[in-house]
């Protein structure tokens, strides 16, 4: 095993040998049981339509077709998914009587192979009665708008308002009040491997088993089980060892798991379904689009004293669990990286005839930081200040840490001004400014943008209940915490086996856990074997399990760290008893456990660790013969929301300060990014190479959202981005080098000192680039994506004065 295996090194990933030699084991590689059927999904071509009769007779007549399952069949065997707000909106995994978005499943065709299933799908006759569709969230709130869920009435799914501090007085006293309106578009993280599953039903025990790369949060597992009408322990989810990326999106496999579990029950045979790229773009899920009106109360010298948010969140056709979580993940951080004491928030959640939303990298962050950081720039222009000075003036100071935000966030650590200063210095901001000034003299369009943000790490399982009123929360019982579990075992030959429910999607969790555990037990990395796939029927898991909200390096690695320490403490006591000395006098180094003051007296780690197996009967008194330690870790800073709606949504908070310089081609409107710098404080970095990869990947996904990606619909609700030709994403050719400037303030909350870092630049890059474009064109605000056609039109209108 090559490389420096110490914490913060960059050893080669143990995952890579298999992946690079084509031996990865993805969902489509899993063995298919005899008799399994392959599913194709017939999807609604209409954004909104009543569904009458479904005639499947021609499809069933195709040789090889076993069954056609409709919404009514599924509704008869399931209950609507539970959602976290009170509403009469019923969500099933397939349209029942009415389709509410283009691409919604209408029927499942089960056949002996996928080709036949798709042939037969073309023969299913569905009696649709098209209805008007509404795609604009503000239009959906209009009284005249078509109503998606007549049982619920109206398209407003949920609404809450919040007041923290005294925003009214702050606005009354403000020297300046500045505002901004943003229509943040939809995008999708688009992993290279689409979703897939293999579902089975065992009627003798009423047990559903679904093999799938569902990435969590496993809080959705009970939601799925309740939909199927079984207890959690009769819905067994098994993840394959490898998953080709997710970035949140594979949380969206949950409704399909329920759908295909029921289909397997109806057909009496296992069912395999692999999502294709068109299905993925159309219906896998999406980040929310949001309409934001944000107002700031500002003093004469640029200090922001209050913010007033009005957010209209478009979750698509249904509240798909865990929505409206996108809106509430950032609730505790609505003042960003700034010390702003007064805060008002109005949140409305709206349904429209679009694909239901779900987890996507940055989850809720871009929708918040886009308006906030555009507004900070606007304040600078209005006050004739340097935008960077406005940011600096408002940053939270290091002596305020841990800092309590008005809405209850507890920022654990960080030196924001120092991180900014370091990024400015090492990233070469002065050089970019000089270049901008020189190019502008030549008539070129060059702009510089900034963005500052906090990156929440390790979600509080209770934050979503902030969407409920305090009274409703009392009724449903307090929810909070983020339990991570890790089982650390010594095996009979003294190796160490580790099992975690972190369901990695390609990140390299197993490698990092080897680093963490080798560091605690002082053994060679080759002695440690980690499994990170999950079987909910066998492994330790909880609702917070899974791979999201950057929880791995902080939470899962903390649990593994704790499990390794439990084993170490056990072996310390065993060694002390065998050597007849004090446990304090025992040391671990180089694969040995020995007396600190007499290193010759001791044991090989392997022998000592195997004793629980071989010599259980000879354990010293009071020491159990256990080879396995199950560590549970949940940070106590993650409490349920209090009665005044304060919520600490995440355990730790990283800090990001980005700036960039870019030039716009005046003829074509094309953007050439000159340099993009991301100053990052993610606490202690566990693996340098992966940390860089995460930051770079997060950046490129933010770049895509900024420049070209949009899940667009026309006004009638037709989906316009159904192939990768219509939904371009940046490739290596479009991605500039990212200059990362790391700072390193260990988190006092996590045992590893690490915070997450995979999502931050996805949150900041869109607004940082947009601010630079605004700077280049001399405009206040611009909407995404920053397509050349849009920029060229602005150039014609504002600079060339041409209005053709």
């Amino acid at each position: 095993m090559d490389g420096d295996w110490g914490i913060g090194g960059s050893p080669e990933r143990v995952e890579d040998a298999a992946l690079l030699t084509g031996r990865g084991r993805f969902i489509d590689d899993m063995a298919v049981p005899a008799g399994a059927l392959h599913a194709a999904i017939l999807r609604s071509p209409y954004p909104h339509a009543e569904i009458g009769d479904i005639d499947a007779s021609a499809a069933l007549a195709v040789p090889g077709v076993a069954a056609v399952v409709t919404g009514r069949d599924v509704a008869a065997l399931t209950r609507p998914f539970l959602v976290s707000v009170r509403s009469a909106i019923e969500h099933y995994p397939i349209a029942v009587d009415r389709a509410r978005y283009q691409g919604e499943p209408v029927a499942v065709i089960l056949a002996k192979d996928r080709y036949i299933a798709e042939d037969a799908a073309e023969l299913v006759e569905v009696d649709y009665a098209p209805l008007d569709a509404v795609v604009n969230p503000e239009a959906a709130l209009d009284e005249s708008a078509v109503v998606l869920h007549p049982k619920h009435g109206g398209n407003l799914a949920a609404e809450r308002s919040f007041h923290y501090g005294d925003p009214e007085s702050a606005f009354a006293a403000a020297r300046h009040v500045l505002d901004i309106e943003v229509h943040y578009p939809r995008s999708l993280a688009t992993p290279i491997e689409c979703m897939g599953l293999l579902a089975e039903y065992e009627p003798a025990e009423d047990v559903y088993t679904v093999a799938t790369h569902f990435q969590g949060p496993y809080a959705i597992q009970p939601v799925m089980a309740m939909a199927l009408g079984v207890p959690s322990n009769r819905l067994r989810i098994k993840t394959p060892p490898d998953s080709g990326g997710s970035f949140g999106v594979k949380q969206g496999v949950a409704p399909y798991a329920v759908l295909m579990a029921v289909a397997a029950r109806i057909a009496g045979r296992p069912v395999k379904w692999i999502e294709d790229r068109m299905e993925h773009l159309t219906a896998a899920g999406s980040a929310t689009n949001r309409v934001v009106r944000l107002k700031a109360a500002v003093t004469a010298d640029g200090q922001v004293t209050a913010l007033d948010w009005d957010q209209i969140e478009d979750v698509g056709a249904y509240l798909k669990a865990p929505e409206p979580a996108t809106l509430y993940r950032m609730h505790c951080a609505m003042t960003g990286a700034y010390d702003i004491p007064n805060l008002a928030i109005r949140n409305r959640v709206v349904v429209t005839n679009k694909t239901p939303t779900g987890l996507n990298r940055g989850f809720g962050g871009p929708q918040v930081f886009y308006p906030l950081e555009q507004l900070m720039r606007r304040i600078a222009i209005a006050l004739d200040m340097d935008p960077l000075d406005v940011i600096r003036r408002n940053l939270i100071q290091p002596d305020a840490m841990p800092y309590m935000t008005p809405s209850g966030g507890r920022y654990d650590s960080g030196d924001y001004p120092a991180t900014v200063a370091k990024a400015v210095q090492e990233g070469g901001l002065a050089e970019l400014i000089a270049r901008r000034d020189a190019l502008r003299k030549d008539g070129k369009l060059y702009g510089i943008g900034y963005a500052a943000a906090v990156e929440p790490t390790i979600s509080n399982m209770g934050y979503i209940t902030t969407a409920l009123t305090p009274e409703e929360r009392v009724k449903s019982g307090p929810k909070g915490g983020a339990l991570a579990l890790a089982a650390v075992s010594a095996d009979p030959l003294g190796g160490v086996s580790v099992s975690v429910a972190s369901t990695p999607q390609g990140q390299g969790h197993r490698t990092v856990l080897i680093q963490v555990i080798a560091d605690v037990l002082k053994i060679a990395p080759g002695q440690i074997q980690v499994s990170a796939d999950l079987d909910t029927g066998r492994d330790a898991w909880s609702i917070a399990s899974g791979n999201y909200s950057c929880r791995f390096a902080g939470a899962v690695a903390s649990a593994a760290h704790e499990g390794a320490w439990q084993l170490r403490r056990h072996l310390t006591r065993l060694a002390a008893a065998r050597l007849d000395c004090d446990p304090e006098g025992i040391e671990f180094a180089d694969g040995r456990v020995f007396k600190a003051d007499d290193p010759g007296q001791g044991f090989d780690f392997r022998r000592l660790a195997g004793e629980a197996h071989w010599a259980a009967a000879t354990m010293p008194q009071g020491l159990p013969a256990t080879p396995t330690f199950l560590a549970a870790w949940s940070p106590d800073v993650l409490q349920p929301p209090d009665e005044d709606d304060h919520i600490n949504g995440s355990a730790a908070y990283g800090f990001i300060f980005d700036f960039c310089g870019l030039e716009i081609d005046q003829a074509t409107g094309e953007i050439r990014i000159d340099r993009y710098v991301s100053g990052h404080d993610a606490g202690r970095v566990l693996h340098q190479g992966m940390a860089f990869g995460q930051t770079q990947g997060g950046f490129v996904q933010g770049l895509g959202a900024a420049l070209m990606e949009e899940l667009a619909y026309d006004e009638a609700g037709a989906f316009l981005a159904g192939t990768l030709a219509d939904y371009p994403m940046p490739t290596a050719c479009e991605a500039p080098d990212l200059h990362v400037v790391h700072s390193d303030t260990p988190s006092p909350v996590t045992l590893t000192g690490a915070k997450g870092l995979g999502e931050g630049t996805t949150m900041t890059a869109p607004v940082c680039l947009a601010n630079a474009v605004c700077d280049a064109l001399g405009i206040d605000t611009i909407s995404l994506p920053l397509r050349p056609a849009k920029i060229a039109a602005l150039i014609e209108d504002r600079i060339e004065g041409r209005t053709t």
Partner: protein
Amino acid sequence: MKPAQFDYVAAETLEEALAVLAEAGEDARAIAGGQSLGPMLNLRLAQPEILIDITRAEGIEAGASWSDENLHVGARVSQANLLADPALAARQPLLAAAMPWIGHVQTRARGAVCGSIAHADPAAELPLLLATLGGVAEATSATGKRDIPAEDFFLGMFETALEPEELLTAVRFPQMPAGAGVAFHEVAERHGDFAIVAAAATADASGVTLGLGGVEDKPIVRRWDGLDASGAADAVEALAAELDPQSDPKADARYRRRLVRLIGRDVIGKALERRHAV
């Protein structure tokens, strides 16, 4: 995303391919590299009953050949092979300049020159190049062979003058006049994407030709005799005003018209600069 069922014929000779086409007509489609037809099959936008693979058919040329008048490119020649031809830069500099803009190394390795032309995507480079250079398509059927000039070949989006029983067996790019200058540029959202607007220009002793792709439903070619650099902007401005550019989510008609004006003028200027007396 699986294709509908089809029969697959791996034609061993041109005659065999033509015989299948003669019998099946519109129910058959020829496939070479599959870079255009493959996705259409998987999207079920094309559902032929018979797919005729011509990649091994004898009688269809697999290499490009040069004569004093023409570059002759058979239907089995891949874009990568043509691009690698050592004479290309000197004898067909417009192709040499434009072909690297087609897709990516991987797609050019499979994609056939004639296949792209027969597919007739209005934003693709090769149809634009054949039209700009005034090339000829060779259509062969079981009953004979005919030449179709590029100006008559492209009828609209994905539509050509090929009859159902005809196969595009080769294309010919005429030799450039001595001393001609050429230039090519395109604007696409990403490297390798279909162009939002592509512009190709040639300038010779008697005048200037401008070809535009991505603007309307087929390549647009305009010839100006005696045009020089001073007149280029006005000429292109007038052309841009006449056009009826398409609109889509990535670019509206206004933007396409702007690009026609700006990159059209630009490529004409460059072609004129590169023109030299002989």
